[in-house]
């Protein structure tokens, strides 16, 4: 990677302060080694930095907690990391309203604790201690609890966004219902930082449940277990359902975990019913996090979405191909981990996902393999629109260049 010119560094120091730039030993984003990090101290400085970067036509990799910086295509040309963690802090939390506002660099764990103390739950699932609010929204990250929480897109009420040009903008608002202008919040959520850098967000919170219960079963037949798990996920209080299937080998046990959350009487009733239906028993609340740790395990991990009724067929086909599976039946999503890192495994997963009415995304793979395929798989129909958006929001390719679907 060509190093940024001295003139650029001076300009960045001028607008963000000398402390904002740090040289360090190279950090790898895929196979791209970056040894310079720019950390604007506040949103105004972030805007000024982007203006400078835009003028210099210099690409950056936007970085929050860096818990999933590998997700995306290989960066095309990134001279530095743009660290958002200077934009941290819970700026507003209103227990009477069930909404809060925080800087994009705020760790999710901090925000979660803060609202929990006031009787509310942060409806964003990523547990990763280092994950930031901005990173979770930008990557549209959801885990098994999205079943109860809803998707990140449902939680975001408003965003402050610095565009690639440095223009600082707002969209949405702080109220729970709003159609004032285009819903750009939806566009930025899940855009992996390709369209703008999130500065801060207003979120809608969920009430804390009166009662939470974790159940676990050890079924032995994948197809039957999946069917049972899907039925469980359709219960009113099912907040998360996850089914883990190790790579197929005789006698390898499956694990099925169900988290119920809601009004006490409803949870009690459904616990009783599910303990019978799934032959499950109550376990420690950590069971779910333990299970989902498998999601990121493996050298090559693919996320496959599927229609509920075709999830079983997709799971069987992937397992036959040697994958270890973590399935979220109620969300129509599974993560398949392969021991061998071949492009074939991904293209097979793409085919399986398409046959199941969904799509596949390469979550994790060595950079060499990622250079051979688009990690977002097939997006043919919508690609011209995706490109038109990228070109307009980021005309000179400052933000995560090359990383979006279609290598935009």
């Amino acid at each position, binding site marked *: 990677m060509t190093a940024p010119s001295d003139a650029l560094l001076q300009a960045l120091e001028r607008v963000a302060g000398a402390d904002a730039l740090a040289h360090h030993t190279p950090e790898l984003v895929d196979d791209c080694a970056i040894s310079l990090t720019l950390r604007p101290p506040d949103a105004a400085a972030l805007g000024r930095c982007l203006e400078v970067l835009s003028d210099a036509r210099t690409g950056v990799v936007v970085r929050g907690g860096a818990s999933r910086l590998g997700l995306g295509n290989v960066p095309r040309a990134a001279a530095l990391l743009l660290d958002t963690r200077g934009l941290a802090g819970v700026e507003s939390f209103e227990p*009477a*309203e069930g909404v809060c506002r925080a800087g994009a660099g705020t760790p999710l764990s901090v925000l979660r604790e803060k609202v929990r103390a006031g009787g509310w739950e942060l409806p964003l699932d990523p547990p990763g201690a280092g994950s930031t609010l901005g990173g979770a929204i930008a990557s*549209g990250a959801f885990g098994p609890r999205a079943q109860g929480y809803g*998707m990140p*897109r*449902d939680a975001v009420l408003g965003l402050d*966004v610095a*565009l690639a040009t440095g*223009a600082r*903008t*707002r*969209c949405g*608002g*702080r*109220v*729970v*219902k*709003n*159609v*004032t*202008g*285009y*819903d*750009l919040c939806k*566009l930025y959520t*899940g*855009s992996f930082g390709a*369209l*703008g850098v999130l500065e801060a967000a207003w979120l809608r919170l969920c*009430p*804390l449940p009166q009662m939470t219960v974790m159940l676990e079963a050890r079924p032995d037949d994948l197809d039957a277990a999946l069917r049972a798990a899907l039925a469980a996920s359709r219960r*009113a209080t099912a907040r998360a359902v996850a089914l883990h299937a190790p790579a197929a080998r005789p006698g390898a046990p499956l694990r099925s975990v169900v988290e119920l959350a809601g*009004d006490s*009487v409803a949870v009690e*009733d459904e616990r009783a019913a599910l303990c019978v239906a799934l032959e499950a028993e109550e376990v420690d609340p950590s069971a779910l996090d333990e299970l989902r740790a498998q999601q990121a395990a493996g050298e090559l991990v693919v996320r496959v*979405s599927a*229609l*509920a009724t075709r999830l079983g067929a997709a799971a069987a086909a992937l397992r036959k191909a040697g994958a270890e599976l973590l399935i979220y039946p109620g*969300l*129509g999503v599974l993560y398949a981990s392969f021991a061998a890192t071949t492009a074939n495994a991904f293209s097979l997963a793409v085919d399986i996902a398409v046959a199941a*009415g*969904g799509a596949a*995304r390469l979550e994790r793979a060595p950079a060499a393999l990622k250079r051979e395929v688009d990690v977002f798989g097939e*997006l043919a*129909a*919508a690609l*011209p*629109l*995706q490109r*038109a*958006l*990228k*070109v*307009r*929001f980021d*005309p000179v*390719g400052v933000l995560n*260049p090359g990383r979006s*679907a*279609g290598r935009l």
Partner: protein
Amino acid sequence: MPIDELRSIVGAANCLVSDAELLAYECDGQTLHASRPSAVVLPGCRDEVVAVVKACRAGGVPFVPRGAGTGLSGGATACDGAVVIECSRMQRILEVDAENRFAVVEPGLVNLALSQAVASLGLFYAPDPSSQLVCTLGGNIAENSGGPHTLKHGTTSNHVLALELVLPDGEVVTLGSPTGVVHGFDLVGAVVGSEGTLGVVTRATLRLVPIPDCVETLLGIFPDVVTACRAVGLIIESGLVPAALEVVDDRTIAAVEASAYAAGLPRDAGAVLIIELDGPARAVAVQIERVEALAAQAGASRVDVARDEAERQRFWRARKGAFGAMGRLAPDLYVHDAVVPRSRLPEIIARVCEIGDRHGLTLCNVFHAGDGNLHPNICFDRRNAEELARVVAAGEEILRACVAVGGVITGEHGIGSEKKEYMDLVFDEADLEAMKLLRGAFDPDGVCNPGKLFPTTRSCVESNPKARGYDEVPFA
């Protein structure tokens, strides 16, 4: 104007051009921004929509998608001599997948028809605008419509999984997936609520949800509307999520009770609050007790629980008959729409009434209180220019008051022609420029539903790509 070509595409019977025919299309439910289209076409299928769009492009004429015309912000009004593409003939349900809980429909299908069609499967389509007997799903998608049950079940945006869209250049794209898992930029999310400015929706895959085990409807009687709003605040703060929380004020009650919609409400009630709870029966039973306690704490004089379906319908009649009842008070009804943080409802509702009174207007409130979504309705006669000026002035004051407490200028009816000049109460130039970037990606020439959403006081012309350096971009 390519009239002959339009006729040959949709058939003469489905191409309206006479003055008498076009009169009905001068406006939607918002009558103050009338403008006559140059023609109205009623395509019968996607391919006809494509052909119409291409003919309009070739003829240099803009076009406007339209559903049932019940919109309340002038969204379906034809600016700049546009051709109206009315989707009402495209009203088939193409697929119902009960197991995967979605339906694929054409845009002209009436909202309620979908819920009726899937009821036997134990499912329904959740967004329920009060106009659901007539409004179309295409219109709902364009406006991101809500309804009384949005509080728990979400707005239209939460229920659209995939869309087929005819782009302004006549290309057809499919966005999203019936799995609901977004892949790439969330284009479905961007199109929902885009007020018909990004293309014509020709097919939609919509989420269906199971009919809840148990639904209970409560009617809280309050001494005044401020107290009712206080109860709403206590309920939200408690963490309860009712299916609906609707406030009807004394002025509306009086109008309803004097009309054919009379629901037997106590005439001396200062306001009523309709509370609907749904979910597992045992949980709902406990929630009823919690709601009763909170309502009493706020100052309710009484809370009744509907004993049967007939009584439940009667409670709702107060809400659903409100527009019809108010229609009897004056020739015109201005249905306003704004949102405030829910905890600010008590002060803002007092302020709204004060504004109406000060301008000497008949103003009634019936609204989605749980979402903080106000609907101050002003009865007036638009032939009275002086009264009309007061209506407009009061409306603007209300919007400003809502924005001042952190609210926005529309929660479900959209900006359209009606509120575009108020966009700058909420957004600055840079914010609007970002919205134009989205517009430009779909409709670079601004031919799809022009004259909406963006203020005209500033340049409404799409930004010139050259000026932004798009010719030099590294993507080709």
